[in-house]
């Protein structure tokens, strides 16, 4: 069994409540940080830990914190990104539902480190039950004197508020989230300036994912160096993986970074293999926007090394043969799934969620969806596949925010690895409406490429 830092006490009855959480050693990090460490010490520990943003981009959290501008007399804000909406990802929901105090504790320590006296947790509006849970947790913590004025007699004041979203994936992008928190449409801002300089209400702001903030707690408790001992290379610590799709045991798992992908899929400790005894066809390893991989690139990299659950190993081979850790949304496809249909579905998602601000994304996502719909329904042509490739290429990198890339990558990867399945839809329009392409050759060992 790997070490559990976030979910260690998840099965403890009543861990949702302040009292049980406290009994299990909760809020030690608040005591330690506020009483014996300076804010800079806390930032230093987080830097040492090597913690990388758990929302998807994987940017080192400590470095992000150290960019925060600190002009005199201007408030600074910490905003927690709880807008979890990336298809395949449901770890933050799990954390907020079952162990809300882990997030509140992380919020207090992180706010202290950044010098914020008001912090917001922006939670997607659909998670109203989680919003209620967090509000209750905040009230409990406040009643216990760990939040509010003069926390633990240290003179540090902090208020935390929960803000509901209104239903928009784009608000997971940090500047769109800030716009939304200011009561506006969730249009991402044009950067620079970055939030670290001008964020919420024009003040210096750090936006961090729920899991990143919760991870600060074990980092402060055990020290950054201890945290960094877990994992491999620049993938340190533990990570929550949301496993879904056609696996036997879907759910949220805390893994030590470095677990082999094969073990994660097939071991009973984690996913327990493919559901209903079927065979693995494809994997989206980090949420719908990361490149999909065919079965023969999942367990091993193109060089034949075991593929591990780390930022580096998942990305091994670049987009040609690798993928990304992303937000840890692990979607498994069995042999009966149709890649064309899924690509159309994902593209419909991005089309639906595009804010409409910049032209390539606003127009391009809808165009791709229409072309994919055509192919999926047996009315496409071979030229349509090339057209799709070209449209995604014209969107990628040319938009205001990463939603353009997120919409382009799944289409590019699907065509890159599953082009013959697309062609089969085109060449067998009737057959493709009555049966799936199946596993085909996607699990065949890859022939070594001659240099």
């Amino acid at each position, binding site marked *: 069994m790997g070490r559990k830092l976030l979910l260690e006490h998840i099965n403890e009855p009543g861990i949702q409540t302040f009292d049980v959480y406290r009994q299990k050693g909760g809020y030690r990090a608040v005591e330690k940080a506020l009483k014996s460490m300076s804010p800079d010490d806390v930032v230093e520990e987080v830097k040492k830990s090597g913690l990388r943003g758990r929302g998807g981009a994987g940017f080192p959290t400590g470095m992000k914190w150290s960019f925060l501008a600190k002009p005199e007399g201007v408030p600074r804000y910490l905003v927690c990104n709880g807008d979890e909406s990336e298809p395949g990802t449901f770890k933050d929901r799990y954390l907020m539902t079952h162990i809300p105090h882990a997030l509140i504790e992380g919020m207090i320590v992180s706010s202290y480190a950044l010098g914020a006296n008001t912090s917001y947790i922006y939670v997607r509006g659909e998670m109203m039950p989680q919003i209620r849970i967090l509000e209750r947790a905040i009230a409990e913590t406040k009643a216990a004197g760990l939040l509010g004025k003069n926390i633990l007699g240290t003179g540090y004041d902090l208020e935390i508020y929960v803000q509901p979203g209104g239903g*928009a994936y784009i608000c997971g992008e940090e500047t769109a989230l800030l716009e939304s928190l200011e009561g506006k*449409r969730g249009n991402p801002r*044009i950067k620079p300036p970055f939030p670290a300089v001008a964020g919420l209400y024009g003040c210096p702001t750090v936006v961090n994912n729920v899991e990143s903030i919760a991870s600060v707690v074990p980092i402060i408790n055990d020290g950054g160096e201890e945290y960094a001992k877990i994992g491999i290379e620049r993938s340190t610590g533990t990570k929550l993986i949301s496993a879904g799709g056609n696996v036997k045991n879907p759910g949220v798992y805390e893994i030590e970074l470095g677990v082999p992908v094969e073990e994660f899929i097939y071991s009973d400790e984690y996913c327990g293999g493919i559901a209903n005894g079927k065979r693995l066809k494809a994997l989206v390893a980090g949420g719908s926007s990361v490149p999909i991989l065919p079965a023969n690139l999942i367990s091993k990299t193109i060089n034949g090394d075991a593929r591990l659950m780390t930022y580096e190993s998942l990305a091994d081979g670049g987009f040609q043969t690798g993928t990304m850790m992303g937000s840890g949304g692990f979607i498994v496809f069995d042999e009966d799934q149709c890649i064309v249909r899924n690509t159309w579905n994902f593209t419909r998602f991005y*089309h*639906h*969620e*595009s*804010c*409409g*601000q*910049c*032209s*390539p994304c*606003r*127009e*391009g*996502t*809808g*165009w791709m969806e*229409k072309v994919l719909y055509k192919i999926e329904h047996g009315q496409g042509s071979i030229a349509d596949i090339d*057209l799709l490739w070209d449209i995604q*290429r*014209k969107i990628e*990198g*040319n*938009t*205001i925010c990463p939603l353009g890339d997120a919409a382009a990558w799944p289409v590019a990867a699907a065509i890159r690895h599953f082009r013959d399945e697309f062609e089969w839809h085109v060449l067998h329009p009737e057959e493709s409406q009555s049966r799936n392409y199946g596993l085909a050759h996607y699990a065949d060992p890859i022939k070594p490429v001659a240099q």
Partner: protein
Amino acid sequence: MAEEVVKFKVTIDGIPVEVEPGTTILNAARQIGGDIVPPAMCYYSKLEGTGGKCRTCLVKVSKGSEKDPRPMPKLVASCRTTVMDGMEVQNITSPDVVEARKGVVEMLLINHPLDCPVCDQAGECKLQDLGYEHGDEGTRYEFERRTFERIDIGDKIQLHMNRCILCYRCVFVANQLTDEREHGVLNRGDHSEISTFIHKALNHDFVGNVIDVCPVGALTDKTFRFKNRVWFTKPVDAHRDCPTCAGKVTLWYKGDEVLRVTGRKDEYGEVEEFICNTCRFETKHTSDWTLEEPTPVDHESVIGANHYLNFNPPSVIHEDKKLQLANEEQLARTERLK
């Protein structure tokens, strides 16, 4: 002694220029002028906060600055990226930029109705120019174009949402020139539309400027609607003593009749000074105005192509009485405007 002004040196398509710190790449390019100026559909220098959305002005930064020469990883919106000292930028010399821009033009056109023959903006439409200068021939889009329900926003301004490219300029006009914004961008994604939500006439003193800033035919002058093609009208600069605005305008004549009044536009199609609704809609007689001179018109433009500035009668006219008679009116006007 005057203090030494720090200037940043930036090179665009190999042409160096020195600009003040804080200048955007686009404005640095405009200081150079000519073909290397990136097109801009949403940026408007007179409206704070515009730009970044249309992506037509994307350029490649091949060298970040003298201090940090690394190139920028992606193409950047030149209207919103400020120059650094020693920066090197590629616009028309970069195949990546030309290709990406072609893509943006195609995207902007897939849902545009291409109803130029019945559009009042035709002839002074920035999207026409953009398509002509930076686009590809034809389209690969084969689906039905997006349409919106028509809404009425009063008797002065005509809204054709189908033509809108969502540059947001008109929203900035309402925010920055009027004290109450009554229209905005509703819905999202490719359903986004300029609307008032409830039926409402826009009639704030300065709201008519949405017509001048609109790069396409989405917001046009209802009092000019279907009156004439712009290339058959003759622009003349004029002014009047207006209590509300600077009163400096362009009058668009057909014969002796003023068909429409607009702000005076510079070479990038931006008005020099915003004008009030009274000047625009209510004062349409020559007697309301002091005429200055024919508005300088780019020779390449459709208006120029209609031989406006100097009616250059083909020599055959000089020798043919019949032709002279047929062109009497045109010749007389040329004399008048000389």
